[in-house]
């Protein structure tokens, strides 16, 4: 149990940072560039850990310094609860609702930190993060709840026994559609839009505080993609050695991220915060709700279309 906890934490840390490197390299190649080293996120993280953390003269230094810790702690906990590449998670069982709540904590930490930073950029960034969070969580939660309904349980071990993309593809599309917003990249990097509000909530952070805040965001991107991979692609393919399992799962996630995050990032401009809500609450949410309604009505259209393939 201790061993699996340690493995899960180390894997989550390494994978999250490697994922950032992969994302940046894919984006760079779309722009005729070579991009940074794949370990760039590691270099950034450890460099920042070695610097000094300054707290600005704000009314609540507690909240300001608490935000990064909250962000990382919640994500490390989530890494233990999601069954990363195995039929059980590191602590044995895992609840979907718990994971959804945990995944919402890094944005909330960002909002707290941005509001507590005493800068107008932080305040505007925090407000935008609120709008973004409400926007993309909606289709995501509806999709996840649909899957739980179909699986009959909120336990992740039960859910991940089936590859739900083969039964609820519309919900899968809705969930994958929210990936760029969860990763906070173009077109949805509005909370930390450099050219508009410098770095938004991050602007007053430095040193280990900044390193942890960023780490929380990177872990969230990785675990969000992991959750989608685990729920919609299942863990039934992972019957090899644990290390091989981790590598396979990481490969799937890297593919998801490269196509749906990096490529999208390279080919769009930043959108406006007033549009994001409308964007996510229309088609993605409707897709997720459609699958929910169809499932409740007993229409197993995937079985109807592909039943001959033995799904």
């Amino acid at each position, binding site marked *: 149990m201790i061993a699996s906890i340690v493995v899960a934490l180390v894997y989550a840390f390494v994978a999250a940072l490697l994922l950032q490197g992969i994302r940046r390299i894919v984006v760079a190649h779309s722009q005729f560039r070579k991009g940074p080293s794949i370990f760039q996120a590691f270099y950034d993280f450890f460099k920042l850990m070695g610097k000094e953390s300054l707290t600005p003269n704000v009314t609540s230094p507690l909240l300001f310094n608490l935000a990064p810790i909250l962000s990382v702690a919640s994500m490390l906990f989530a890494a233990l609860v999601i069954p990363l590449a195995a039929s059980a998670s590191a602590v044995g069982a895992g609840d979907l609702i718990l994971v959804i709540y945990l995944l919402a904590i890094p944005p909330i930490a960002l909002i707290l930190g941005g509001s507590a930073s005493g800068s107008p950029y932080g305040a*505007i960034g925090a407000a935008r993060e609120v709008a973004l969070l409400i926007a993309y969580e909606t289709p995501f939660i509806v999709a996840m709840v649909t899957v739980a309904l179909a699986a009959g349980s909120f336990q992740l071990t039960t859910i991940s026994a089936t590859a739900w993309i083969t039964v609820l593809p519309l919900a899968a599309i809705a969930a994958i559609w929210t990936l760029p917003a969860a990763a906070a990249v173009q077109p949805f990097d509005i909370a930390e839009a450099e*050219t508009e509000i410098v770095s938004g909530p991050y602007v007053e952070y430095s040193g280990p505080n900044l390193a942890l805040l960023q780490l929380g965001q990177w872990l969230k991107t990785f675990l969000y993609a992991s959750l989608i991979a685990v729920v919609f692609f299942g863990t039934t393919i992972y019957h090899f050695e644990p290390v091989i399992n981790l590598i396979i799962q990481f490969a799937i996630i890297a593919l998801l991220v490269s196509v749906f995050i990096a490529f999208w990032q390279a080919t769009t401009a930043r959108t406006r915060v007033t549009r994001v809500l409308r964007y996510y609450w229309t088609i993605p949410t409707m897709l997720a709700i459609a699958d929910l309604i169809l499932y409740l009505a007993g229409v197993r259209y995937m079985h109807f279309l592909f039943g001959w393939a033995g799904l």
Partner: protein
Amino acid sequence: MTVAEVNDRGFAKLKVPIGPSHPALEEPARFLFDVEGEKVVDVDYEIGYNHRSIERLCQERPMPKIVYLVERICGICSHAHPLNHVERVEDIADIEVPERAKYIRTIYAELERIHSHMLWAGIAGEEIGYHTLFMYTWREREKVMDLFEMLSGNRVMHGCNQIGGVKWNISDEQARSALGVLGYLDTAADKITKSVLKDSSIAERCKGVGCLSKEDAIRLGAVGPNARASGVAEDTRVMCKYAAYGDFDLEPQIAKDGDVVAQALVRLAELKQSIGLTKELIENLPDGPIQVEYGEIPPGRSVGRVEAPRGELIHYTETNGTRFFERIKIRSPTLANIPSYVPKFIGCQVADIPIIAASIDPCFSCTDRMTVIKDGKRKIVSAQELKTGRI
């Protein structure tokens, strides 16, 4: 700064500073926006961060140095300023510049326009978060900079203009090479235009943003592509026919709406026009000398205009028969365009601030040349004050 006030609809009232050091600005200037929620209700601005007391220095340095001094006013318009300057001196001293020199000057001017508009396209993309457009346009722009390096030895600050002619000749081999690059740039310009105008995320961010009506453009004295984007059909190259422009048929490129998309349309159309014009210039380059001898510069004065990439650049030059200039006055296009910021900013969203700031292609280096600043304090010019300057 705490968010203490809320307006009557519940939106927080904030004062958001942009600058002097901010990723949205290429050069330092300070804007202070009164923001309610995401909407800008008022703007203060302040310029003067790039003061280098150039006009004062022009009176105190001997004449041969002034061409170099004037060249260093701005990196992007580094040909327009000395071009205007030498044309003024040639006007005062009645120096007749050979045809070949005029053509070479025009070639440099058009190449500068090409690289400046590509730079603008990249910066505009960067401001709306579209980093790929920035990388792509600047990659193509490198071809122009390599061309400059081949022709004059430098990417910017070419040192090409002299009183009475130009310093660097263009050999046949260089001309052939340049035509090849221009052919490539023609295709690249088409690709850039297509990707900017057909992209839905760009259209979503730029359409209807930062509108300037034609009446406001004329009344506030806007110049260059900024004015042409609002429908004002004035182009100094067409109107004044300086250098070699008299031999060519040019039309001012105009757009109607005055928003950021119109600015893009005008600049991209000018980019294409300049590429075609440069090809014609190189193909029809006349033979002959590139420099004439001249004597003393008599006392006199001249005022004249040149179309820099950002608009109409005007120099007033006065000589008094000594080896120093009596007075040189430079009004760069961005100073004329700054008042047009006010109608563009009021009513926009915070997300639109960087793209509107970049849309007039500001060059604060050209604008702040004049004062010797003795202490570091700055002052804010309020939009209210600009607004009450109107009738």
